[in-house]
């Protein structure tokens, strides 16, 4: 009996420790990002760092301004959402409201497959298909530019927007739609004027999730954006917050201001993402409460 109680106590403790792991992981990540990212920001000066428009990390008189990266990430995010939201939400409407069950059963796995494709594969397709196409269509010297990155990101955020919006649209109470139909509205009018507004907070959650993915994506955009630290322009070669970290990390010397500054960029990205996470949490919560 004694032994049994002892085992019970031990297992209780073991499961408690497992439960603590995700809290510990978030704490660990936060502490290390701040610890590694803050020194360079203080050394360079927060204003020069965040609002400086010139990034010359390897020049003899280096300059560390990351405004180009911040603006590129913001542009990339809004560009991808601008194109991805209509297509994604309409596809979700199709899947949840208009498609015959058999067609929906065929399209849904396709969307899941799109979500499962590794980002490097998107990058490869972008590099070989999209970049030359953009170059030809717009008569550019090189197709590696913000526009190509936005197009790749658009495809990558689609599955997020579609699956979250579809779940929200399915959760709209039948009575709402039936009432609208009973008042003489057609089905398509009902969907657009009743179902979509009723599923609003879920759809917004899907969009925010997509925004998080667009801001956080590194490898795919690294392969198509050209990687020059310009202020953003649709046809200019640009660097995102993520790719700024990834492209110099492999050769920056340990302990150098350059490497510290890369961690600072990581910290800025982290703050962005935490803000988006918080917004996502708020919208999901609001959807649940209703």
């Amino acid at each position, binding site marked *: 009996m004694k032994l049994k109680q002892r085992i019970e106590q031990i297992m209780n403790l073991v499961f408690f420790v497992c439960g603590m792991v995700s809290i510990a992981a978030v704490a660990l990540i936060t502490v290390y990002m701040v610890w590694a990212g803050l020194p360079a920001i203080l050394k360079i000066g927060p204003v020069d760092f965040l609002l400086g428009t010139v990034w010359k990390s390897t020049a003899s008189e280096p300059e560390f301004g990351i405004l180009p990266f911040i603006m590129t990430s913001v542009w990339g995010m809004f560009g991808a959402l601008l194109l991805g939201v209509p297509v994604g939400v309409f596809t979700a409407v199709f899947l949840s409201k208009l498609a015959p069950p058999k067609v929906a059963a065929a399209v849904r796995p396709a969307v899941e497959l*799109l979500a499962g494709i590794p980002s490097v594969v998107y990058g490869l397709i972008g590099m070989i298909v999209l970049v030359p196409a953009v170059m030809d269509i717009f008569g550019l010297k090189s197709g590696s530019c913000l526009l190509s990155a936005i197009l790749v990101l658009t495809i990558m955020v689609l599955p997020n927007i579609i699956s979250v919006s579809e779940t929200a649209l399915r959760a709209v109470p039948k009575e709402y739609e039936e009432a609208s139909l009973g008042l003489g509205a057609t089905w*398509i009018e009902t969907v657009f004027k009743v179902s979509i507004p009723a599923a609003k907070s879920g759809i917004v959650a899907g969009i925010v999730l997509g925004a*998080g993915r667009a801001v956080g994506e590194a490898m795919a955009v690294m392969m198509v954006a050209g990687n020059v630290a310009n202020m953003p322009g649709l046809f200019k070669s640009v660097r995102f917050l993520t790719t700024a970290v990834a492209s110099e990390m492999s050769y920056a010397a340990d302990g150098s201001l350059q490497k510290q500054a890369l961690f600072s960029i990581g910290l800025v990205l982290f703050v962005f993402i935490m803000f988006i996470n918080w917004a996502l949490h708020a919208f999901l919560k609001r959807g649940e409460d209703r």
Partner: protein
Amino acid sequence: MSHSAKRNLKGNICKALVYGSAILTVAILVGILGYIFVRGLPHISWQLLSTKPSIIRNTVGILPNILNTLYMIVLTLLIALPLGVGAAIYLTEYATSKRFIAIVEFTTETLAGIPSIIYGLVGMLVFVQVLGLGVSLLSGSLTLVIMILPTIIRTTQESLKTVPAGYREGALGLGATKWYMIRTIILPSCLSGIITGCILAVGRIVGESAALLFTAGSATVIASNIIDAYSRGGGTLSVALYIYASERGEFEVAFAIAAILLILVFLINMATRFAQKSLNGKEQVK
């Protein structure tokens, strides 16, 4: 134009937008799959799959990358599975404080939203430098453990919630201790949920690149034994795809790897559906 004609037109425009978007989404997927397979499948050969790159013979092989991917999956799941399932069990079976549960769920959600490049940075700082594990498969695995924890916790929790309360009450009423009940009743009944979590996690591990580039590197050496394998750096298939495409310009190999990755993703998706179906089937029986 009469009012009803206007109404009709509006409805048709909306319908056209909806159908057009759905067709576009499917077309994008079909286009990507078709292009990768057409350019990639012809370059998959036995020599590519079964050798390592050789400068002398001027050949490229991806056997080391395949092995690294497998090593990475095995170790990551070995660590993440007990942790994740344990966390889910604590949340649904043990935890009494609503506040604590909410905090754990919020942090799990947060982990799921952190991009892989941040995991790469933290993994490099913590595992590679502070803990001194170096750029190795072990550092890479530990980084991925944190990354896939949310997936395993969430799917296990979902399936634990479907285990009827009567099972628990029955077992406890017969005098079983809590751990005995979990071991013999709860875990077996949520097995398919755990399996679903595993399959989803494998999908993420296979597709991951940014988190591994700085923690596990991109080496292509075949290790002689297990300890050697984990203490050495090595690139998985996705990392190799990136290196071959962006740094070496070997697009034939890159497309071959992309085709292999897509086949894997396809199999993983099928397996997930299968696991979920058997889960739902069991629920209906109850």
